């Protein structure tokens, strides 16, 4: 039941909301507004003047092969990260949900990676995948694979996907585990008596009951892959080699901070903003509809 508190007058409620409103205004609406305004401007090479160009920054972007390449990279990257992070987390959660010795220990260990800062996580993977000092990198070399993510774009992409997904597995794991634990044992027992083998039980009972959780996590993971993976990419590959691991968010940084092309960078930010608003809207719509309990 929702409790409604009745305030006399409007001053107190607004006062109580003020801190949050201030934070939202200063850290979201203002920069977002600036980005929208800047996306319609073009500066001269020395940054001394700017002129209004309407939507030209956007139309330029969609004709720019480098931008389209970054969009493709993002699609590959985010799909792979979400699939890998969700799949691994679901597998681990199902294993950890079984009655096994030291289950609590496994759960704790599986949650830990979430506490590692993105850049540190990236360095960790660097030490694993580095062709000359990394454990796996040297291993690849030993079995004759020509492994060097610094020159091979595909390998670089694989590495950032693994590093980025690894960071997200813990988060997904917690949600999946909670979801699994909320499925009543008797329902699974009923399925067992109805003749369903473990695999069938999983796909016909457990997975459908987890699907609201899975959908929520899918959106969260896509948002993560879109926006929160800058640190991992920056520390591992800096978008390279070439532009092989340059995603949309990384290109915003490259164009805005390195190339100082504020108009284009702002236009890219606005596009990303529209995407995240879209994802969030989808999520809210579905979450309200698809709940089983």
């Amino acid at each position, binding site marked *: 039941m929702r409790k409604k508190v009745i305030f006399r007058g409007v001053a107190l409620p607004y006062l109580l909301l003020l801190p949050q409103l201030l934070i939202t205004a200063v850290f979201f609406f203002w920069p977002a507004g600036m980005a929208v305004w800047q996306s319609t401007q073009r500066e001269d090479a020395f940054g001394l003047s700017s002129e209004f160009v309407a939507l030209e920054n956007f139309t330029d972007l969609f004709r720019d092969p480098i931008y389209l390449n970054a969009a493709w990279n993002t699609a590959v990257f985010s799909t792979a990260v979400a699939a890998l992070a969700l799949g691994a987390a679901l597998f681990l959660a199902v294993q950890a949900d079984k009655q096994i010795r030291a289950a609590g220990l496994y759960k704790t260990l599986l949650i830990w990676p979430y506490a590692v800062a993105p850049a540190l996580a990236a360095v960790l993977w660097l030490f694993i995948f580095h062709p000359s000092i990394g454990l796996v990198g040297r291993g690849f070399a030993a079995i004759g694979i020509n492994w060097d993510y610094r020159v091979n774009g595909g390998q670089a992409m694989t590495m950032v996907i693994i590093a980025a997904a690894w960071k997200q597995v813990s988060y997904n794991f917690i949600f999946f585990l909670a979801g699994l634990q909320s499925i009543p044992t008797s329902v699974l*027992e009923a399925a067992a008596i109805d003749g369903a083998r473990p695999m069938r039980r999983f796909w016909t009972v457990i997975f459908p009951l987890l699907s609201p959780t899975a959908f929520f996590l899918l959106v969260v993971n896509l948002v993560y892959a879109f926006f929160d993976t800058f640190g991992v990419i920056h520390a591992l590959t800096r978008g390279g080699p070439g532009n092989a691991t340059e995603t949309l968010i990384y290109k915003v940084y490259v164009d805005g901070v390195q190339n100082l092309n504020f108009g284009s960078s702002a236009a890219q930010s606005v596009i990303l903003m529209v995407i995240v608003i879209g994802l969030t809207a989808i999520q809210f719509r579905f979450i309200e509809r698809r709940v089983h309990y």
Partner: protein
Amino acid sequence: MASLDIEGVTKSFGATKVLHGIDLAIRDGEMVVIVGASGCGKSTLLRIVAGLESPTGGAVLIDGVNVTPLEPADRDIAMVFQTYALYPHMSVFDNMAYGLKIRGLPKDEIRRRVQEAADLLSIGQLLDRKPRQLSGGQRQRVAMGRAIVRHPKLFLFDEPLSNLDAKLRVQMRAEIRRLQKRLSVTSLFVTHDQVEAMTLGDRLVVMHEGRAAQIGTPMEVWSKPADTYVASFIGSPAMNFLAATLVEGGAAARLANGTVWPLTDGARAGGEGRPVTIGIRPEHLMPDPAAGLLIAVELAEPLGSETVLHGRLADGTTLTARIAGVATAEAIRVSPEPGTLHVFDAETGKRVVP
């Protein structure tokens, strides 16, 4: 249709022994009710039969085939759970069809069987609904339907009525019994409610601390309880127990206050002074103003046609009597109807037969 044999089944959880060797043979088409207080091991026994728990020792045989090592899926049984355990994401139809789909039955056969079961349980109009849109009684019916459509060898019921309100419970109880008789499927029904047990079972298993205290028809268990536990558990209000000793020859018992009650069904062994416990059901006590035991009435519960009196004897022993008509007196003298006394050994609590 099948017989079920439980042979020397024991179960321990770690160092705790919850079943101390249960033997039970259920004939084809019979309905046996396992009744006992919570923690007596009755649900564990049922889950062992279902294959959801494995026994520490002993064997479970269905139709003479040892199914102990088999998974629940391979035992061809159906179970109705206390919480119904319906699949929340499936419609009523899919809930009932799930087991049939797994068995790979043709679509029209599935449809026919589900429709048949739905008609039997009058839930035909609910087939498209999800479990969360159903009331408790309707969910119960769907759970029953899911069991019926499979045409299993064995029905297992794990306290299926305890989540229903009192009126619905009585109604569903009768319905389960009717269905079971009509389909004549061998059934094992677990409950803590002795009224359910008495009305549903062809036979009862009264369980106490992991042992079968008594196995018999409801009337056997009621009229010849094997020990004081069974005697106090079956029957409502519960049986009264009075400490007594046998008189010379064992043909009568002398209560603590000196009253002598004859044991008209025959003399008990042991002779003069053997300490016994006399059991007398409240409904077998009759007003006897001349020579009865004096009860100081503490509470009178009028039930309309009769009154249940709760009171105490002079030495403080509690005694309950069920008297026909309305009784308002603050004290009443009562005596047992001839031939209704139960005699138990004072030490072991076992029934002492003539």
